[in-house]
């Protein structure tokens, strides 16, 4: 063992988790090398998402069961091309690897995962990783693909060249994964076997590194595989001048069709489950304040949001399949030219498509955009896209105010047309805002768009399932915290102050008083104080307005059934005011979670404040204009 490793040996002698230092193995690799597939295979459901304090980069931490049955912590770091910190992802990965993250400490060992079908270029990352001097396992992934395309490599010869063990595996099929588990077993053995020192190229000299990689590859008998024929065949269709855009449109339409029509039965199912379980809970509780609070306050409020879970999961399933299969990179390529017209780039297409489900994952997805200004512009316009939280609001108001008449025969009726119009409105506002940003604060001369097109691959069911599970947990946490809190607060505000043992009438309650207080500000838009209460609660999340209006009108007409919400709205709101309300919802940034995620992703309160003020004024002025125009 060389002297350079004595510090690590000392650390290794301490038992796990003492001194705030946890033993763990870091998983690193370039994008598309199959890092996450391997991580999922090793850890399964024993993983969670972590966040480094102060930066936006997420990591997954999980436990793998090593060969001996002992558990090893694994951290899946963001995909990187080099350790030269250029993007935030690369900076975090480098900081973790050199032990600059105080809460983590330096990893005990590194698993470097490379795509075996493109070894020469991938070995460029091996030089800086091996230079760290940590015990490293070099995993050559996609062994099945390499063999199928007639390529080959001698892992033992490569191990001799690199001075580190090499495992040829296929993370997708699981072949060879036991070698990784053996390495993990060794990583918790004490003392650790350190990496052998080998002659490495000067890291600053990239052409030199590439020559070194080529030489190492040759000396380990690497035969590059034949080009991926299927990928080229598929690309002749997907990037064809006519078929390409056609397929692109078909994919986008299929995504929308699925999240609107396909999700309907599932959403009805969830709605029924919530209603039935609400009745059960109601039957089990004595009549009174507690029951009212639990059923009408919390259960109805949280339930109105849980209904969207199937829709959001379906959208993520779609995006997951498109991303893992490699099509999403082609979609970004096709979209780039159109996006460049409004000063955005192709990579913004993926976040903006996700924003139709929910702005929060969309804003997190902008991390793939390296250029800071492009990324900021995409973050700022994403909440204009019609997210699924607006959908129930639109559905309610359209059903209440727009009579269902055929417009284009059986193809299009008035209600669908109104819905499409609202989607278009959000989209146009996004485009106009992008243009505005480009000609003002985010002006620049040149957009750089560099995108690797990975070969098409079969999506891995396991990884897709884990990703959906991840998203469901995030969504349920939100429903269980923010929305639960708002529902509870609203119910309390709507029933207080208590006088003579009786809850206050709504109009005299705190909620009613707040509504009356804001009424002068919203009267120009044609809204009364009840809508005012709804607008305030919907600042937390848009869909909350439905629960609020339900509560408000429910309290007023407690004897009537739920269907009367539409009738109650018709009595209380003029058609012009209803249109103004729709326009307001199309543009306003009524979502605490989005504000919070923009703060996290931009690193300060500046941009979320600008965005909130801009979107809300935009919404107010547009709604006002709509009301005036229709009331001429």
């Amino acid at each position, binding site marked *: 063992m060389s002297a350079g490793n004595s510090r690590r040996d000392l650390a290794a002698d301490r038992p796990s988790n003492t001194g705030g230092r946890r033993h763990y193995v870091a998983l690193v690799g370039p994008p598309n090398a199959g890092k996450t597939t391997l991580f999922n295979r090793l850890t399964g459901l024993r993983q969670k998402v972590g966040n480094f304090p102060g930066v936006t980069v997420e990591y997954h931490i999980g436990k793998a069961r090593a060969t001996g049955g002992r558990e090893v912590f694994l951290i899946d770091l963001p995909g990187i*091309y*080099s350790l*030269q910190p*250029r993007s935030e992802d690369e900076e975090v990965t480098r900081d973790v690897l050199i032990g600059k993250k105080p809460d983590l400490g330096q990893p005990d060992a590194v698993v470097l995962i490379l795509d075996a*079908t*493109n070894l*020469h*270029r991938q070995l*460029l990352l091996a030089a800086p990783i091996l230079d760290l001097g940590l015990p490293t396992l070099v995993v050559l992934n996609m062994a099945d693909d390499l063999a199928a395309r007639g390529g080959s490599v001698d892992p033992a010869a490569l191990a001799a060249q690199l001075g580190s063990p090499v495992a040829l595996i296929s993370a997708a099929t699981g072949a060879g994964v036991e070698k990784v588990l053996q390495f993990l077993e060794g990583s918790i053995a004490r003392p650790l076997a350190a990496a052998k020192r080998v002659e490495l190229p000067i890291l600053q000299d*990239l*052409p030199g590194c*590439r020559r070194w990689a080529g030489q190492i590859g040759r000396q380990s008998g690497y035969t*590059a595989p034949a*080009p991926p*024929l299927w990928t*080229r*065949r598929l*690309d*002749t269709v997907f*990037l*064809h*001048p*006519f078929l*390409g*855009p056609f397929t692109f449109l078909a994919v986008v339409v299929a995504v929308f069709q699925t999240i609107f029509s396909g999700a309907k039965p599932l959403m009805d199912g969830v709605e029924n489950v919530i209603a039935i379980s609400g009745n059960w809970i109601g039957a089990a509780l004595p009549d009174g304040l507690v029951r009212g609070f639990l059923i009408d306050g919390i259960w109805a409020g949280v339930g109105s949001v849980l209904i969207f879970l199937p829709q959001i999961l379906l959208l993520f399933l779609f995006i997951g399949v498109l991303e893992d299969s490699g099509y999403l*990179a082609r979609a970004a*390529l*096709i979209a*780039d*030219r159109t996006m*460049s017209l409004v000063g955005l780039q*192709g990579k913004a297409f993926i976040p903006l498509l996700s924003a139709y489900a929910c702005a929060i994952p969309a804003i997190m997805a902008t991390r793939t955009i*390296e250029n800071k200004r492009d990324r900021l512009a995409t973050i700022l316009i994403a909440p204009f896209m019609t997210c699924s939280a607006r959908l129930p609001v639109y559905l309610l108001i359209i059903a209440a105010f727009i009579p269902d008449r055929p417009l284009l025969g059986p193809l299009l009726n008035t209600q669908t047309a109104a819905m499409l119009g609202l989607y278009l409105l959000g989209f146009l506002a996004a485009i106009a805002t992008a243009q505005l940003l480009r000609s003002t604060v985010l002006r620049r*001369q*040149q*957009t*750089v*768009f*560099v*995108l*690797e*097109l*990975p070969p098409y691959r079969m999506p891995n069911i396991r990884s897709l399932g884990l990703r959906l599970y991840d998203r469901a947990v995030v969504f349920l946490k939100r429903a269980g915290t923010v929305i639960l809190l708002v529902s509870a607060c609203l119910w309390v505000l709507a029933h207080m102050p208590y006088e003579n043992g009786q809850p206050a009438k709504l109009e005299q309650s705190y909620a009613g008083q707040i509504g009356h207080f804001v009424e002068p500000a919203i009267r120009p838009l044609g809204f009364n104080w009840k809508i005012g209460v709804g607008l305030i609660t919907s600042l937390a999340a848009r869909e909350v307005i439905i629960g609020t209006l339900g509560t408000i009108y429910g309290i007023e007409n407690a004897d009537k059934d739920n269907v009367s919400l539409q009738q109650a709205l018709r009595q209380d709101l003029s058609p012009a005011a209803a249109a103004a309300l729709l326009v307001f919802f199309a543009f306003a940034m009524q979502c605490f979670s989005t504000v919070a995620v923009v703060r996290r992703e931009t690193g300060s309160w500046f941009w979320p404040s600008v965005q909130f003020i801009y979107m809300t004024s935009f919404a107010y002025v547009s709604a006002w204009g709509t009301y005036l125009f229709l009331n001429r």
Partner: protein
Amino acid sequence: MQLTFNKRADAPAGSPLNSGNSLADLRCGQAAVIELLNVPEDLGRRLMELGFFPGSEVVAAGCAPGGDPRVYRVDGSEIALRKETASLLKIQAGSIRTENPAKSPSSRP
């Protein structure tokens, strides 16, 4: 062979860096050898990490519908670049050759 990074966003017209053929001049199915990367340093590093080195052979493999961005095949992978970026990657004079069309079924004129 030299590696040149241009510190400014664009060189003045008529400068030697703006003359000569670039990857943007390749038609689909044509291959050429890179002479130099006339780009800012951080973009240059990213391009090299993806395989665009002075001396690398690059094949114009295809393009998005509409002709921009272009797809280049280099060092075993396919990378899409906008025309404006590709025009900064200068190619060696006389290094253009036409790939055997049978080898690249996705290339189109």
